[in-house]
């Protein structure tokens, strides 16, 4: 018996629970040089904004213990070019397509999602209300429950398919933001975006990236992410959770499912091992077989706590 890896989130079915995270898989084309995207549960595109953004000057990334810090600055081609040049490629891919959007005003989220609503192949949108790398917007939305609720509520009116709110860990209580997203009409939450971090070169006394602070990602943040998923899962928020943060292999995936995630996204691990999601799919199959489980769904929320 081959174990069933399929999961369903807000009525959208995924052939397996492994998605690639926004900003870590480009617009899909780049990874398609390495493996068929059809093997992924889903793909989340780089945050799209209304206008194209060049991003911050280099250096934009620094290596840190067990991970990295980045301040790419939401560099992206903008919604017009995204629809004209990137969507046609994505439309051909046999995997779930999630388009991540970001804005500096609520109106921008609404405008972007209204346009994406006309493209049937955009299965879901993910609202990046939590990017630590832009001066205006981004982080303010994700740290303020009122703004979160309002943003989701207004997007809800223009986007007919499921909406995911992507939450920031840089708050006192992430479950408050998750509840606000649910009240606004979100269908799922993804937990977590990158953690604010900093790196300094002791020789030159310089900060290592031009934006000085950036988003810490990779294995270094996995425990923070697990705790955040656990917190949201055990709150009043009943939305399905997509776990993100430092996932490197199949056993990391299992940990996230156990604390309550229904699916996961893989970010920084793709930089070190571009085919990591494929290995995780295989590893997950072996794990389920070894544990004599028929479906990956049997793991969700089954953590045994002291």
């Amino acid at each position: 018996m081959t174990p069933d890896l399929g999961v369903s989130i807000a009525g959208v079915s995924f052939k397996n629970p492994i998605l690639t995270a926004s900003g870590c898989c480009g617009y899909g084309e780049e990874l398609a040089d390495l493996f068929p995207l059809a093997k992924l549960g889903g793909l989340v595109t780089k945050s799209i904004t209304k206008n194209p953004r060049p991003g911050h000057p280099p250096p934009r990334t620094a290596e840190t213990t067990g991970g990295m810090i980045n301040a790419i600055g939401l560099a992206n081609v903008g919604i017009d070019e995204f629809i004209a040049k990137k969507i046609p490629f994505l439309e051909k891919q046999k995997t779930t397509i999630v388009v991540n959007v970001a804005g500096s005003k609520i109106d921008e989220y609404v405008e972007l999602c209204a346009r994406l609503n006309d493209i049937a192949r955009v299965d879901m949108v993910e609202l990046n209300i939590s990017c630590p790398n832009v001066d205006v917007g981004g982080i303010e939305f994700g740290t303020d429950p009122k703004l979160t609720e309002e943003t989701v509520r207004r997007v809800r009116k223009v986007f007919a398919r499921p909406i995911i709110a992507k939450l920031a860990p840089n708050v006192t209580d992430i479950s408050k933001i998750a509840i606000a997203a649910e009240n606004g009409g979100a269908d799922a939450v993804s937990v977590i975006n990158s953690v604010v971090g900093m790196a300094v070169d002791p020789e030159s006394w310089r900060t290592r990236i031009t934006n000085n602070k950036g988003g810490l990602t990779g294995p270094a943040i996995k425990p923070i992410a697990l705790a955040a998923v656990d917190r949201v899962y055990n709150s009043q928020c009943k939305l399905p959770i997509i776990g993100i943060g430092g996932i490197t292999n199949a056993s990391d995936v299992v940990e996230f499912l156990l604390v309550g995630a229904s699916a996961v996204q893989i970010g920084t691990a793709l930089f070190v091992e571009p085919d990591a999601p494929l290995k995780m799919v295989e590893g997950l199959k072996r794990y389920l077989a070894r544990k004599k489980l028929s479906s990956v769904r049997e793991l969700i929320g089954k953590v045994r706590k002291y």
Partner: protein
Amino acid sequence: MSKIVSEEAVITRRRDLHNNYYSLTFGPIHSLSACRPGNFVHIKLPTSDIYFRRAMSVAAVYPDTNELEIIFRVFGRGTTRLATFRTGDTLDVLGPLGKGFAKPRKSDRVICVAGGIGFPPLFYLASDLVQAGFDPKKIEFFYGGRSAPDIIERSRIKKLGLNFYPVTEDGSVGRTGLVTQFVRDMIENGRKEKFVLYGCGPEGMLRATNQIGLDLSVPGELAFEAPMPCGIGVCLGCVVPLVKGGYARVCADGPVFKIGEVVL
């Protein structure tokens, strides 16, 4: 479309080139047929305190045995670790990556400008040209370093039969000074020739070579370096600013860019 492969490759040969320079040859590399001069590989270093892979230019390919050679200098954590691997060890090699050098026309006089550890891609370029029947006497290979030990693989370069000009800042081998001043002299003295420049080296050297190209209207290409988290174009971490505005990814849009294209 070239197929990029991540594979466990065995180190078949390790050479200590002295003064902290090393050569590692890997095999078998199955994606080798897609490899061009200017391409690089991204090597995983299985240690918890080194997270990114390290980019290494391809220095040579051996199609008969499906092997690929890199040459590096021990610089920081990553290359210190890389130097500890021995013949028989395996490493995860991702490649070939990036866009390579454009081929010169038969009538061109090729000038290679290598600085320090910018040598490997230009050595591969020159070897590949000679192998393909390009007249070695029409290749001028300038190689600059601080001191004699920085000019590695001299006998291997000479064996190609090209015109070889080592240049050191302290005069311990070859001519004394900065390599770019001699390049400028050659172009200024050879007005009628159709020169084409290929450069790789430290930023100052790239800047000077770029300026020579612009001042004397000589076309050419430069290979750049940048910190590279992914090497495959998905993270947007490795960018350089472009003269026309915006940024380009060194890993996927480069590492080779035309003279005059990048803000230096």
